């Protein structure tokens, strides 16, 4: 099978399983909702100045929610030794990685699409800048979180305290991406600055880390 074929098959399998169980999306949605509600106690969410912190808030909520889904990425494959079977098969490791990353990307984008109206309602958000820029930031930012998150989930699944390990290694590396997402979102929402630099930054971050992930995934998959 070619890389593309393996990627598609694995991706479709994951999407079908998620469609039937809805485990990841439900837990992410509920988690993000909780974060939104809890944040609203920390400050007055409808105040005019809250627009300035909305960017940070939205992304922190999505980041925490994404970790919930990312942690489940490989757990399913660990049961019944699916990963071991994959390792002995001639299928290219990067195809598996790409399928998982694209799957996670899809879940988190769906989460964002469902949560965005809620943010608008609860925090009385209006965008001064063009909305299409927000979509670009969301797509680039989500890929930045998800590509590293999928990789680090493969690392943390092999450690003793699996679920705790993922945020511990993912958050420090993701700091520049988060900074870019938050600042770009805030610039667009307030319309006070141009988000161009941050969008380019995110694009560079995506390219660099996708390359690093693809370069190293085989070693991690075969780590013994």
């Amino acid at each position, binding site marked *: 099978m070619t890389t593309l074929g393996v990627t598609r098959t694995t991706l479709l399998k994951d999407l079908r399983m998620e469609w039937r169980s809805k485990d990841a999306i439900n837990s992410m949605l509920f988690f993000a909702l909780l974060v939104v509600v809890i944040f609203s106690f920390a400050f007055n969410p409808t105040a005019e100045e809250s627009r300035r912190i909305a960017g940070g808030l939205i992304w922190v909520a999505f980041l925490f929610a994404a970790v919930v889904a990312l942690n489940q990425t490989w757990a399913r494959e660990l049961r019944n030794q699916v990963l071991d079977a994959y390792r002995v098969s001639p299928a290219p490791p990067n195809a598996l990685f790409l399928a998982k990353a694209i799957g996670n990307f899809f879940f988190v984008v769906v989460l964002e699409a469902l949560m965005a109206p809620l943010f608008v309602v609860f925090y009385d958000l209006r965008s001064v800048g063009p909305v299409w820029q927000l979509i670009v930031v969301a797509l680039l930012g989500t890929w930045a979180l998800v590509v*590293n998150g999928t*990789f*680090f989930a493969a*690392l*943390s699944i*092999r*450690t*003793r*305290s699996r679920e705790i*390990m993922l945020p*511990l*290694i993912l*958050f*420090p*590396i993701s*700091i*520049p991406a988060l*900074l*870019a997402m938050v*600042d770009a979102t805030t610039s667009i929402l307030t319309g006070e600055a141009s988000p161009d*630099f941050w969008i380019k*930054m995110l694009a*560079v*971050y995506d390219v*660099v*880390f996708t390359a*690093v992930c693809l370069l*190293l995934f085989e*070693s*991690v998959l*075969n*780590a*013994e």
Partner: protein
Amino acid sequence: MKRIFIAFVVFTLGLLAVSTYQALFVAPTEQTMGEVQRIFYYHVPSAWTAGVCFFVNFLASVVYLWKRNLASDAVAAASAEVGVTFCTIVLITGPIWARPVWGIWWTWDARLTTTLVLWLIYVSYLVLRRFSAGGQTQVLAAALAIFGFVDVPIVYMSIRWFRTQHPSPVMGGGENSGLDPAMLHAFFWNLAAFTCVGIVLMVVRYRLQMLEEEVEATHAAAALQGGPR
């Protein structure tokens, strides 16, 4: 080999004595900042040594992924630990210096934030090493080390764009930059001394790591031959 190392330790101790004397007594007192500026002779050399350690960590991790030998993994483990130690010294001496000079302990400026993020990345590296099991540790740690090293310039660029307050590089900067020659003299003594301390610590930690591996291998062999001994 051991004799060379002991000679090097003695040399380092001598160097440290000279550099401390240079920093505290020989170097002139800075005009505006006063005596507190002397922390500079510890702050910057520590930052340099931490940087060297993290670079060694990156090289050793790449070599490990390529050659898969335990020695380069031990170098990576040792350099990360020593690097985090020196980075911690930087993060502690920085605020002590900043408080009387800037009037605040901490500011979220580019270099401070980058150093803090660097510290976080390598602490997470050490946590991963601690929590992963058996023979997988080396590969997982090496992969994370490469991620961390690639991340550093991106962190720096992004936070530099974000905000900056830390003084621009004093040495090799513009026209008004540059240290008093007497200060530069003391600074280089300290730079040399701290680098040597870093090397000594790394060598000791490397030996320890290799001994740990040996002990583990012996235990494993004993277990294979039946029962603990």
